[in-house]
């Protein structure tokens, strides 16, 4: 795949314990909060249906609060009776997160808050406890693998050419909240420096796999994947190691610099929230070649052919 202006549906997965989320039909902009909640760890199990003398199926009738709602210590969660009342109360300040099949109530302390933000401008198409899907039109570039949380910021070039590596010395705090475009390679030093300087995310042709392990841990794989914790965001566009960008990818990046953009790590996509007429989609699709030693990827010559040459939109 290459650059395309189209209508996209982007699924924003939510962690467990969502307390509030944007309802379907809501108009959102990239960066708006779609859902928020608290990290759920250990839960306190409060006797529910059996304790207050109703069947689990009838518990919903007598619940005073619904999952997921904040509760204070001593708050009544469910209650029956009038003169001889029976009630289930919260043992802690926290949130009622879940009602079990047996009608017991799970209350969790709030140890950490999370927020999931939209990565495109559009309309909420579906919203439930698992995911919020936003549909909207924008430019998009399919990458190979994304790592870290989603990132939103202005697109900024941080290299002079598509074959240049992103040097850590070119990153400073003035680039805060931007999505930096590196060239052929972003080393772990550049990634961590960018994160320390408040850079929203980094996009480049490739990142060294060993560097990704340093940043994201030993269980990182070539498929990438989203996280919700405070880590750098990296989008590898064509490979690992080193990957000079073909003109079909690089030229629109230059043309779209300065526009609002986002990295959606689950789908490994770069979205640029610019109007369709801001640039033109490349006429051709780039051909890429895997180096003989498999340690890097490079653009192939136009007439390039061979066992390890592929055309991006044909097979990916």
């Amino acid at each position: 795949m290459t650059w395309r202006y189209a209508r996209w549906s982007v699924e924003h997965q939510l962690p467990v314990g969502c307390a509030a989320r944007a309802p379907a039909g809501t108009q959102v902009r990239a960066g708006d909060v779609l859902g928020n909640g608290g990290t759920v760890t250990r839960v306190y199990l409060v006797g529910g249906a059996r304790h207050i003398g109703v069947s689990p199926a009838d518990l919903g009738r007598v619940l005073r609060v619904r999952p997921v709602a904040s509760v204070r210590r001593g708050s009544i969660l469910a209650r029956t009776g009038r003169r001889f009342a029976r009630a289930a109360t919260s043992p802690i300040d926290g949130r009622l997160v879940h009602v079990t099949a047996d009608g017991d109530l799970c209350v969790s302390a709030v140890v950490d808050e999370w927020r999931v933000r939209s990565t495109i401008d559009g309309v909420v198409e579906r919203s439930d406890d698992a995911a919020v899907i936003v549909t909207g039109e924008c430019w998009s570039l399919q990458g190979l693998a994304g790592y870290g949380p989603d990132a939103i910021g202005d697109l900024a070039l941080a290299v002079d050419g598509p074959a240049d590596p992103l040097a850590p010395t070119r990153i400073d705090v003035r680039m805060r909240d931007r999505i930096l475009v590196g060239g052929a390679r972003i080393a772990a030093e550049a990634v961590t420096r960018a994160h320390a300087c408040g850079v929203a995310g980094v996009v480049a042709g490739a990142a060294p796999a060993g560097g990704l392990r340093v940043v994201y841990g030993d269980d990182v794989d070539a498929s990438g994947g989203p996280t919700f914790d405070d880590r750098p965001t990296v989008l590898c566009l064509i490979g690992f190691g080193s990957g000079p960008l073909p003109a079909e990818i690089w030229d629109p990046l230059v043309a779209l610099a300065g526009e609002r953009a986002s990295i959606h790590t689950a789908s490994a996509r770069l979205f640029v929230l610019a109007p369709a007429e801001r640039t033109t989609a490349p006429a051709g699709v780039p051909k890429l070649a895997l180096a003989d030693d498999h340690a890097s990827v490079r653009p192939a010559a136009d007439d390039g052919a061979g066992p390890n040459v592929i055309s991006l939109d044909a097979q990916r």
Partner: protein
Amino acid sequence: MSATLAGPGRPLRVATLDAQASLLERHTRRALLAAGVEIALTLSAADARSFGERAQALRDARPDVVLVALADRGGGDRLALLAEPLRFGCAAQRPAPRVILASSDDGAIARATPLLSPFAFEVVPDVRTEDGRRRIVARLREGSGDEVARDDALEGLARRTAEARRGPALVIDVTGSSTSLVRAEPSGPFHAVHARPLGTGRGADRIVARAGLDRVARWIPWVVDRPTLLERVFNRARWPDAISADRETAALEIALAHEAVGHALADAAVAGLATAFRSARTIVLSGSLAALGPEAAVLVALDALEPIEPASVVIEDGEALVPAASVVPVATSRRALVRITSEAGTREERVDRGAFFVVDVSGDVDVSGSGVTPGRVTAGPLGLVIDARPRPLVLPQRDAERVPTVARWYDALGALAIA
């Protein structure tokens, strides 16, 4: 009950809730490995994670199917510890996971029914029974993608080979994203392990994630730069059908195949099948493993499988099975005498512990001697491989000792001939 189809090239993702792991884990694992699914998450009642962490793990796993095996009512009671995180984490998942409840105990089923109520679920017989496992495999395969066809073909190949050669046959198949071990007897037990996503292509990074980079690198007969090796693995994982064009990548492919087969065998060990797989009179090598060439393929089979009795090794070449070599494992603490009888006559080889070499013979060969299981094998173009290396095979930690050791094994068979 509607089937959940995995996408093309994507195996069915299955999470297991092991409320009675000590009783049932071996049987559950046997069914899952036979079905060729990806085991996305295994949660047991003894899991140290909190309720929220369990629920998040299940949500992250996005299982297509959840397998719940219960032996009795006690298991049903313990299931609450696992089913509630499932309800909390996956009730909103679209499409929702299907649940297969494997139990023949009415009390367990009655207890599990409300716990699993938000999900469509089907009850099959106890996983400890042949019928239960067969039903689970059938249900899981219905929901799997087109990879099932390859699994069926491999199982058919193992059965046909066992019947044709009138002895136990083992098929070892490695592809880009799967590794299979299938053992069949002419008229007897049949065992299959289809480990996904373990392979030398798309599954290469998963091998490294599971085994560790050092365990992959140890099979390469020279000192290798670890970060560069990881680069190669990652690029290989994301490059469809990458072809090894030089010595470095060929060695990487051989190393990945070693670990793929080794880990498939480790999975089989959890299911209680490892010993059976090590014992077969005919070993068929297919897929990417066969494409490595007979020398490298035989080396991988010997190193990773560590067979315990003499076997004929054949390579699948289209519809034909081409003889490659025969292997004779020798168990000795110091020195053994191996008697080899072929059409050319009888010869005796003195074999020291740790020896690994090829005897140039062809055709049908009878082998016997101290530390050798007597038997008849068919030697191919590679001849008869005598393997007296200590079991389990332990590679030296230091490169200065490891490299010459591994290089000697490669040289003995002529593997990595492009070097």
